[in-house]
């Protein structure tokens, strides 16, 4: 075989690998129970070589999971050395520091055998809606309050499911059937991935993945480094203030672009919190790397090679590197702010690529209460309905309204929320004037109104940010409108912590708008008038922020 022929074969096998893990993820999506997985895709799936290098990752999936799962498999290999792995084994953990950052994420790793020989590892993660404890919120003051804690264990031993563990899991969640179903769904998706990989290896006559893994990692590494080489070198600093649980937090970043890659240091960032908003280091690395990839190398598939040029460090004891036993349940609220933090630095290097700040973290509406319609005879319901604010305006384009960034999950359909939980959502639409004004306007946030559908109070497990500190505009663009939380009867609610919404009372949520980019007064007049016509901005807003008054609203 010629070398050129081999090169083409390698490329083809790489593509196949990506389609294998995509299928793995689709299986998870189609069999999952938790709406946050099945409707929203809060999951990840990938294949790893025997050194624990991630060689392919499903495009379906969310960055916080993917890039932290990339590390998790190495921990699995340490706990279950390769030579002890057997066909039919499945390993599980939800350890926030070995997995993907909070107890709600179950990580499963399955050794994949071909003709009796271990050839690869498949790993996947999904978010389990309820795992007991205080529930999915910010109120815990140590990790043990946040639910069942599963160390590195065998979920299956040579094909035999660990019934003791499954019984423990069922007993430690408010949703036993769904939780067990999700565990099975995770197991099934790894099985499917392994099946396809073995078929592929048969077809291409592969005995092992080493050469392919080397090729994938080297090629990806080279591609990212080639992009890094085009960037201006130097060190850039920026900081961002966000709400925090009980006091504002400073996120401070220093980004260094050099010939060796890009390093990010969070020295100077606020210390860890007493409450459940702390971020394990792997999750900090995950979202930081994701932000860098978006700007530097968005076309390169994500794997160990493409992640290698990025190094991330946060001081231990800071909110971005909180060690055990810190409470970490709502780590996404802080972790998802990291791309914006890093963008503050990169805007000094490549301003033409960097958007203004956006809503950042997901605005997940987590409710709990009595139910008349819970599936599988449950008397308590728990739901996490995914909603979003707006993204920041981009240098050449408006921001995206009601769209997740950096998270990659989908919103939950209103009709699905109402089918699984006794709630009525009376309103969920764009919030006029919430997008930060600019030459490019920020994406709009939403106004959402929720009420209990039955004669029982709702518990809201709030975990929101950008209420006190809205997204900031860039290059003359104005800030996005801050988020808020109140009852229709008037009372303001806190952005974080468990609170009650009495039956008959409506909860009114404003998700933040993205910030604007560039001077609003240079925004093209037809764009302003179109926004006005469509009610995305009001006549007052048009006059106040854009100096536009010729309007005749329809």
């Amino acid at each position, binding site marked *: 075989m010629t070398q050129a022929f081999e090169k083409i074969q390698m490329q083809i096998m790489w593509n196949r690998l990506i389609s294998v893990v995509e299928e793995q993820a689709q299986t998870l999506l189609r069999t999952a129970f938790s709406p946050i997985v099945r409707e929203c895709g809060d999951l990840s799936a990938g294949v790893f070589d025997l050194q624990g290098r991630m060689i392919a990752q499903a495009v379906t999936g969310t960055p916080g999971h993917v890039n932290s799962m990339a590390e998790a498999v190495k921990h699995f290999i340490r706990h279950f050395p390769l030579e002890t792995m057997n066909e039919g084994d499945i390993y599980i953990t939800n350890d926030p520091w070995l997995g993907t950052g909070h107890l709600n994420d179950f990580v499963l790793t399955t050794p994949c055998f071909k003709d009796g020989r271990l050839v690869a590892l498949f790993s996947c993660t999904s978010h389990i809606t309820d795992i007991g404890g205080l529930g999915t919120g910010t109120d815990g003051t140590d990790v043990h309050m946040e639910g069942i804690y599963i160390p590195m264990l065998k979920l299956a031993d040579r094909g035999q499911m660990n019934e003791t563990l499954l019984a423990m899991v069922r007993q430690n969640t408010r949703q036993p059937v769904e939780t067990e179903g999700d565990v*099975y769904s995770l197991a099934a998706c790894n099985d499917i991935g392994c099946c396809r990989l073995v078929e592929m290896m048969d077809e291409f006559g592969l005995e092992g993945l080493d050469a392919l893994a080397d090729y994938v990692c080297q090629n990806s590494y080279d591609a990212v480094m080639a992009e890094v080489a085009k960037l201006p070198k130097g060190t850039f600093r920026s900081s961002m203030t966000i709400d925090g649980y009980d006091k504002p937090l400073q996120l401070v970043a220093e980004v260094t672009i050099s010939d060796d890659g890009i390093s990010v240091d969070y020295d100077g960032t606020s210390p860890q919190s007493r409450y459940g908003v702390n971020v394990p280091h792997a999750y900090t690395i995950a979202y930081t790397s994701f932000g860098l990839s978006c700007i530097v190398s*968005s076309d390169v598939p994500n794997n160990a090679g493409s992640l290698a040029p990025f190094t991330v460090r946060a001081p231990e004891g800071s909110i971005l590197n909180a060690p055990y036993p810190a409470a970490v349940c709502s780590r996404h609220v802080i972790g998802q702010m990291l791309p914006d933090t890093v963008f503050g630095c990169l805007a000094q290097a490549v301003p033409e690529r960097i958007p203004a700040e956006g809503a950042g973290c997901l605005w997940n509406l987590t409710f709990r209460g009595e139910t008349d319609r819970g599936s599988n005879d449950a008397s308590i319901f728990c739901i996490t309905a995914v909603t979003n604010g707006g993204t920041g305006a981009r240098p050449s384009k408006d921001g995206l309204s009601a*769209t997740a960034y950096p998270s990659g999950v989908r919103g939950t359909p209103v*009709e699905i929320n109402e089918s699984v939980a006794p709630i009525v959502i009376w309103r969920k639409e764009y919030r006029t004037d919430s997008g930060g004004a600019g030459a490019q306007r920020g994406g709009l946030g939403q106004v959402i109104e929720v009420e209990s559908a039955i004669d029982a109070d709702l518990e809201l497990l709030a975990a929101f940010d950008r209420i006190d500190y809205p997204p900031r505009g860039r290059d003359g663009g104005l800030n996005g409108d801050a988020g808020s939380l109140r009852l229709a009867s008037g009372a303001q609610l806190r952005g974080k912590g468990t609170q009650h919404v009495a039956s008959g009372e409506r909860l009114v949520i404003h998700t933040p708008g993205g910030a604007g980019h560039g001077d609003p007064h240079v925004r093209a007049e037809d764009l302003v008038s179109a926004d006005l016509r469509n009610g995305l901005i009001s006549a007052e807003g048009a006059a106040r922020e854009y100096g536009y008054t010729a309007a005749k609203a329809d």
Partner: protein
Amino acid sequence: MTGSISQRLAIDIGGTFTDIVLEQDGELNTSKVLTTPAAPEDGVLNGIEQVLAKAGTASGDIGILLHGTTLATNAIIERKGANVALITTDGFRDVLEIGYESRFNQYDIFIDKPTPLVPRHRRFTVPERVDVHGRVLLDLDEDAVQALLPKLDRAGVESIAIGFLHGYANPAHEQRAREIIEAARPDLSITLSSEVCPEIREFERLTTATANAYVRPLMARYLNNLETRLSKIGIVSPVLLMTSGGGLTTLETAARFPIRLVESGPAGGAILATGIAADLDLTKAISFDMGGTTAKICLIDDFAAQRAREFEVDRQARFRKGSGLPLRIPVIEMVEVGAGGGSIARVDALNQITIGPDSAGADPGPAAYGRGGEQPTITDADIHLGRIDPGRFAGGQVPLSPDRAEAALSADIGKKLDLSSQMAAYGVTEMVDETMANAARVHAVEQGKAASDYTLIAFGGAAPLHAGRLAEKLSVERIIVPTHAGVGSAVGFLRAPVAYEVVRSRNMRLRQYDPEFVNAIFHEMYDEAKAVVEAGAPGSVVSEHRLAYMRYLGQGHEIAVNLPTRSLTDEDADLVQTSFDATYERFYQRTLPNAEVEVLTWALTLTTASAPSETTSIEPTDSRDAQVAGSRAIFDPASGELRDVPLHWRPDLVPGDAITGPAVIAENETSTFVPKNFNARIAANGFIIVERNRERTS
């Protein structure tokens, strides 16, 4: 239904070409003319005149006209549909635009999301609310509906979609709102979400309803014009339209739910393959249709194409999932890959060869056309590898310049990757074949099937060139290349049954299994489907297919489970559970121990029995070496060298002719490439059968 009809005419309006096929006493005459987008009936009439002239027959003899069209699809893609208003529940003005709240490309900061068909200033809301159980929480504010009338007038609205929250569970408010508007504005066309898509998930339902409203006036106008023009030339036969679900429907139904006509052309291709599978008794077939811009792959099991209930139209990033508008309509399940003869090849930032999704189309076309195309395409690679005879391409009508193909491949691929131009061309075809093979494999797996058990049926201009390699990659043993492959979709229309599918979302937990409840739903759906099918095929025998979309209580995605076509009884509870378990296991390998099962949606399809297919052997009665028309130098990747192989001219070949691969069989509209390790023979009916040579396979 067709026994007494001597002449049938099939019309397929595509984006570039309009194909016409006339069937007369089993003989086919075809014509291919340019599509005339401004008035598509012009192209149709032109094509009909040509084909009638060829056949030497008169228009009055045509007994029935079967019609498929991409007009609805194109109207959406080009945003040339009606001025539509959406009327929805207060508080939900932006459902169409909020969509999934996600980005279809995670890493690209600069994506554009799909633009909804109805802009915000024409999305109106009225107070009303129904809950998930269909109970009214807030009465419809009828005055508010009345108050919209002047606004609709001022906005110049031609067509309206009404979609309320949970309208699928209780359509009363949607129906009442329609009554009020209809009474005041009888000329407006009104689409209800509860009629076009009675299913849960507001974004998909409302998008489907607005898409229907968007194409409705245009399709009604076109169909009306066509009827008038046809009658002027003496064609007064009934017209049936091909739906995306693969069945024919009446003009009236098509005009009411034109969204069901989206993708009807590709559906015709799948029907063609289905018919061939039935004729040849192939229980497992893959329809492989590869044209100038895309390749479509569809699984056909037990002589029935796979079906689905969702389809994404107008993808922003072409072929990227999630970047288009989701439609919930019955469709033949196909994977569409942005890989056709005209797809452009290039080298990306990773130094990898990538194909498409952009196509050089017919103008400028591939580099070898010499019409100004500079970038290498798949056709260029096929030419350079020797698989296409440049002298006979498109019957010799398009002269090819192999040098230009080589130059483009060399400049854009070879130089960048340090490959010879031939190795570059090989890389291009390998990438595209691999992409298609992956799509087919994943698609098969999604249905719980293995692609290797199938026979490939290859048609469309580029498919026979690539089917051989695809077969190798999928471990497929056999390929069929039918006659008239270039106008496959229109030929498929001739074989399509009159059919209609109805779905209803009505929840039932299996623990509360109620046969009467189920029977009542199917009874209602049967009547609805029967009315449509009876209108299209009066008095014909119909067959019925029932499905339940089921899942474990708490899951979000359903699997389709077959139900018996009879009234259910108390004893059938076990049958339903067992069918679910078996289907679930086939998809996902293991069933769940502790979870309850529910049915979400019921579906019923009525279809006329297709023309009784007599399974006839097409095996030739004798065998001889085929006549050789010349030779071609073909690139052999393993050795990196050119190698002469025989070239055959298909019109010269007769049943029984045998060909040993590697070889090229050329014809007017395409070429069939027979790879090494494969043999070909000409069947009794003229089809080419390409089979893996077991003796020689090492």
